[in-house]
């Protein structure tokens, strides 16, 4: 072996010699019977390796496909948000570790914004945890509060990670579907409701938590105060926690109001409310989120956090804090991004709905969020000879991607095993897309209409 006092300089030669040396050694050692690692991976990972995104995000890489699938904005984030990140990066200290549970200026800004929204005092140090996206908050909350023997209620369709996260924590998911109260076809996300008696029957002494998502992904439902009260009553009666995924909280359209279940009487002390920078500021790639709740619950999420990744990115947190200050100061102003973004998205929502109607489809108009579901069974695309084991919506989306160059997400990905049949005629479109993307979708949909005419 080349002995190199300066191991870098002769890397090329040394690597070559290292390789031949390794090769001869490995021939010797395989002769002597060294074997690969044969022990098992941990039980908690079993059965949780696949998910819908693995297949459908690959699509994003193909530029010939109009991607309305994954919830990925292709609109530009506000320029001041990017500027604040550039500013933060220029400060040396802001490139080093910050406070583990959340960068001080960010938790301060979050406490101010949410005090305003919730109408109660929020302590930035004890009532808030900053996490790696809303996803990280869900993980921290579930790991902190759910274990073997616990049941966790989730409302179908649900953001797909809820189920594997609960299972990984040893908990048992209990499903309850939103049902179209009108039977036939649905025009609005408001048509989709929970049956109160059915919901009550899901609660028992083992119920540790219910996961709520409002505004709802994928349907876009914005739960009303009355609907939240039904859930709250059951939580209080059964001493159950509520994990409230409110990442789309600002994306609420005219005639609707986002209500935080934590503000209902008796709920603050048992609710973890989750938010997301990615959805608030159209920067999904920043992966910053937060959990807000009472100290006696947040402290357990903080313990999980300190044993999983300890701190989140400093420059991103600082930039986010500065962006929040800018918008906090103008929270009553229509120019505040919290209000201007939903206005922008509402017209995209309406355009998307119009395009889908022109193909003869009946989209379910969402009250919030940036997704829209649509029943595609009326197009009567016969896929019965394709893989019989796959739900119809998976087959439809794959067919649509290859023959129409348009992508969406199959809704049965968001359901428990019993309900897949109910939702397999629906697919989900994302409309937080720039005009040129929607123009391209329009071309595809208009041609589609011509072909079916």
């Amino acid at each position, binding site marked *: 072996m080349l002995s190199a006092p300066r191991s870098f300089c002769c890397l090329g030669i040394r690597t070559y010699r*290292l390789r031949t040396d390794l090769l001869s050694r490995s021939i010797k050692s395989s002769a002597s019977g060294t074997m690969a690692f044969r022990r098992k991976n941990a039980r908690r990972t079993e059965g949780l390796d696949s998910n819908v995104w693995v297949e459908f995000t690959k699509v994003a890489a193909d530029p010939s496909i109009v991607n309305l699938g994954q919830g990925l*904005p292709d609109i530009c984030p506000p320029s001041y948000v*990017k500027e604040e990140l550039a500013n933060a990066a220029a400060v040396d200290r802001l*490139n080093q570790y910050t406070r583990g549970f959340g960068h001080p200026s960010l938790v301060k800004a979050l406490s101010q914004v949410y005090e305003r929204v919730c109408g109660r005092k929020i302590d930035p140090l004890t009532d808030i945890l900053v996490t790696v996206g809303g996803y990280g908050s869900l993980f921290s909350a579930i790991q*902190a509060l759910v274990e073997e023997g616990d049941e966790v209620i989730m409302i179908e369709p649900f953001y797909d990670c809820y189920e594997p996260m609960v299972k990984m924590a040893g908990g048992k998911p209990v499903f309850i579907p939103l049902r179209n109260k009108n039977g036939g076809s649905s025009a609005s996300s408001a048509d989709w409701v929970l049956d109160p008696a059915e919901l009550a029957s899901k609660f028992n002494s083992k119920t540790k938590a219910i996961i709520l998502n409002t505004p709802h992904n994928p349907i876009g439902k914005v739960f009303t105060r009355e609907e939240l009260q039904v859930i709250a009553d059951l939580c209080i009666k059964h001493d159950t926690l509520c994990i409230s995924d409110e990442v789309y909280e600002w994306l609420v359209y005219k005639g609707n109001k986002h209500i935080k279940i934590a503000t209902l009487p008796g709920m603050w002390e048992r609710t973890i409310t989750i938010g997301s920078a990615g959805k608030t500021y159209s920067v999904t790639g920043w992966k910053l989120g937060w959990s807000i709740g009472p100290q006696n619950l947040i402290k357990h999420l903080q313990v999980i956090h300190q*044993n999983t990744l300890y701190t989140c990115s400093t420059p991103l947190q600082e930039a986010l804090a500065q962006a929040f200050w800018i918008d906090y100061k103008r929270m009553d102003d229509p120019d505040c991004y919290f209000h201007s973004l939903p206005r922008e998205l509402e017209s995209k929502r309406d355009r998307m709905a119009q395009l889908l109607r022109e193909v003869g489809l009946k989209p379910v108009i969402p009250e919030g969020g940036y997704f829209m579901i649509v029943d595609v069974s009326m197009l009567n695309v016969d896929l019965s000879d394709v893989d019989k084991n796959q739900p119809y919506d998976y087959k439809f989306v794959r067919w649509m991607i290859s023959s129409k160059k348009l992508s969406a997400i199959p809704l049965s990905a968001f359901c428990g095993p019993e309900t897949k049949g109910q939702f397999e005629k629906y697919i989900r479109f994302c409309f937080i897309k720039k005009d040129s993307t929607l123009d391209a979708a329009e071309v595809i949909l208009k041609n589609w209409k011509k072909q079916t005419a």
Partner: protein
Amino acid sequence: LPLGKAPSSFFLSSQAKMSRPVQAQRLEGVDKNLWVEYVKLAATYAKVNLGQGFPDFPPPDFLKEAFTRVVRGEDHTVHQYTRAFGHPPLVKMLAQLYGKLLGQDLDPMSNVMVTVGAYQALFCCIQAFVDKGDEVVIIEPFFDCYEPMVRMAGGTPVFIPLRPKAPKDGKLMSSADWQLDPAELASKFSERTKALVLNSPNNPLGKVYSRAELELIADLCMKHDALCISDEVYEWLIYDGRENVRIATLPGMWDRTVTIGSAGKTFNVTGWKVGWTVGPNQLLQHVRTMHQNSVYHCATPTQEVVAQGFQRELEHYGKPDSYFIQLPRELQQKRDQLIQSLVAVGMKPVVPEGTYFLVADISEFKSEVPDVPNSDKPYDSRFANWMLKNKGLAAIPLSTFYCEAHKNNYSNFIRFCFAKEDATLKAAEDILQKWKLEKAGP
């Protein structure tokens, strides 16, 4: 009272719920964290902070410039989700670099996974493989998160100390003098041993394991079919021209090692929280499962900039202006400067072969902080607290890096971080000099 339910059953079920703690059992015993306390104290009292391990000098210019370019650039997809297991430009660079370093043909998609700092890489590896009933060998002193992470996964940590050998007459102890006893190490392995966590270069001692020492560990891993989780975050911070041997390059070890790295330590950007795992697909597939069910995606902008940083480094590899050469050269000078300051005042530093930490024996200063028998705090912890409050100098007690049962075994050492600007090191020197004069008396 609820309708339709007998009063007693309602009462019983809610009693049962209330008597159980709200938090999951996995939090038991892992809730304490000494750093939360240290950071608070240092913020209040420290005039000079050589405690927590982060540099107080800037990241390299080429990286800062890249960050600004990326953030303000035309391509705003950099602010949206990227590939969950690692931003393609970054995993490609990592596969190229580690392919060279580990002597393997690496597929960026299956042999590399990006994480939120090396911390999250450790979490994913331990969670991916450690189950209730599994034992994990941890070498003391250890980066303190290994123990709670193993416990939270239901595993049992099995500790083995590095034992200091007395240095040759008149010489300072080196981190190389802290060694494993081979028979003792062998005794720690059993049929329940799932993994060993290796940290080389080692935090806090700065030890860089020799090939012979790694072979000792490798032989036991192979004999007992144990995994090696190799925390190599300080891989570039090696001094005195020493060779850095990576355990994954030893025969039989590629298939049972996950190697962990960190952009924070490589490029002086601890706040970016970009780390990675490198290993065979057969192991990484389970690490990926953990990742996709915990954080899923890592932040895009910082991954893009780190990729550009690696591209620059690969172009400059082996050349004098390579950051991988410049940084350890600069840090070696700082190491030597701090060593001099400590020796001059009567502290006995252990010369580190790597990392930006060193530990120093503070026995000479015991008169300042007398030993208190049966104290609940180890001596070094009381000493470090006293030094912080009375001298304004922050350092970390070595007992922080030992399990509860062993905290008093090596309690005459404190750890200093020397990744500091010259002015900071000079200020530390001034404090120490003043202290020495005060001790000498009138």
